[in-house]
């Protein structure tokens, strides 16, 4: 299936990426090409075949719900691009009415 520049724009937004006009064009071309290769999978009949998500067959692995040593808030914040008063700083989310 041919990926259009509009498709690229839409997917980019879902993926939280801004793409430039030039990227839109190359991505549309390259993704079309890659998906064409992916579509060759259609020649395999998979009716009734269970999908494989993971090979070792683990399902949920739980641990006891108890407190364990963890990073201090100082350590956890050390790599933050912006921090203040023991928290991560982000742009304002709520608008005033």
């Amino acid at each position: 299936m041919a990926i259009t520049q509009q498709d690229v724009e839409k997917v980019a937004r879902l993926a939280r990426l801004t793409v430039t006009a030039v990227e839109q064009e190359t991505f549309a071309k390259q993704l079309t090409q890659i998906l064409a290769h992916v579509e060759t999978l259609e020649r395999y009949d998979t009716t009734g075949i269970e999908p494989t998500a993971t090979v070792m067959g683990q399902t949920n692995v739980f641990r006891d719900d108890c407190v364990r040593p963890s990073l201090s808030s100082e350590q956890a914040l050390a790599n933050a691009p912006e921090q203040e008063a023991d928290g991560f700083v982000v742009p304002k989310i709520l608008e005033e009415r």
Partner: protein
Amino acid sequence: MSLHKLTLVELQKQFKAGEVTATEIVRAYFLRISHVESKVKALVTHAKESAFLQAETLDQKLKEWRKTKPLTGMPLAVKDNICTNGVRTTCSSRMLQDFIPPYDATVVAKLRAQEYILLGKTNLDEFAMGSSTENSAFGPSRNPWDLHRVPGGSSGGSAAAVAAEECVAALGSDTGGSIRQPAAFCGVVGLKPTYGRVSRYGLVAFASSLDQIGPITKDVSDAAFLLQAIAGHDPMDSTSVDRSVPDYMKALQKRDLKSLKVGVPVEFFAEGLDPDVERAVRAAIEELKSLGAEIREIRLPRTDAAVAVYYVIATAEASSNLARFDGVKFGFRAKETKDLLDLYMNTRQEGFGPEVKRRIMLGTYVLSAGYYDAYYGKAQAVRTLVCQDFDEAFQEVDLIVTPATPTPAFKLGEKSEDPLQMYLSDIFTISVNLAGLPAIALPCGVSREGLPIGLQLIGRAFEEETLLRAAHAYEQATPWHLKRPTIR
């Protein structure tokens, strides 16, 4: 003999016998690095200061009480997508350019507990996405055998560093061949363990159902030695498997391959296989036969589906894993953004390189409403068929032998403009990850242009011992592992 020429097992013996100090080792390696690194560019971060400090502390301690662990004083390099406490871990991405992990990956904690010495962090394709290291935000590494060629990827820095003897051994990660393909291109040994054999905790996630950490070394004994140090269950990685770890060095003792059935899949010897590679691999198969192995032709009919399946599953998982890079908690943040959405979008636009963006886009697309079944669901179903191929083959044989790559190392720039061609170069390594099996790449010849050629052995899940035993027997019967490049 110069220290940097020794293998891990040899160096370890000398050290244990007190013939050389940790400081001497570190000095020898940084001297070597100063001679070749400007050409090879294998390292993203040099850990010179901390390495000397560690070495001095070790030497001091050993003066008082001479008790060593298997890796005491051993100079290793670690791929830069594996977290090292206090040492920058970049994934060769602008996104993590200044990221200093506050914790060690489990594999690193294990090495540290054994008193290894970290020489540096090695270059990779950004977030391990690529086959050449050309996708690194810090520039490509070079193949020590020919500086105009790629070392392979994504663990190209680790393979190049081992081949150029800038470290005695290294860790890499393998999602679709990233340990084995660069090992093959650089003429060294690369082992991808069974999925679940080695903890992934602290490995920056690319495709969680495929990723696995493993050793890149000068020979098979070293691979066994290093695997021993990192294998085992880890409660911090819910996909790691609780199963005892065998003695891998012991597995090497048996030198003949009698009663071992080795399968040769016809699909791996099809069109597109370089004639030099084919010749070398066929000769290697003859060698296995003369060591006593019984060679059988087998079929893995779904081999040609592997690349397509992989590029759906790996990108889908990556698009989800890489959602965490939002410019808030750690890593790069774009400047001057007007609101939160803008902050996310610009941070990701500026922080990720083109290949990573392409993968996130593809992954998001195949998971998006309306396409999920057609692409992601289909790929997961065909993945089952690929696994079935291996299951059936392993009822008949104990090991599978193939070329590790269709060609020797390609030139820098040769495939970088054509993502699909780059993807297809991984055709021989990818199916192994889809099935979670262990596999090893080891040198088996040299092309007419003087480039190394790699052999791949694939084993049953958790049968690393069989893999290592056969690889070792082959290696000991042939001269290839002794060849080192002249770097110029």
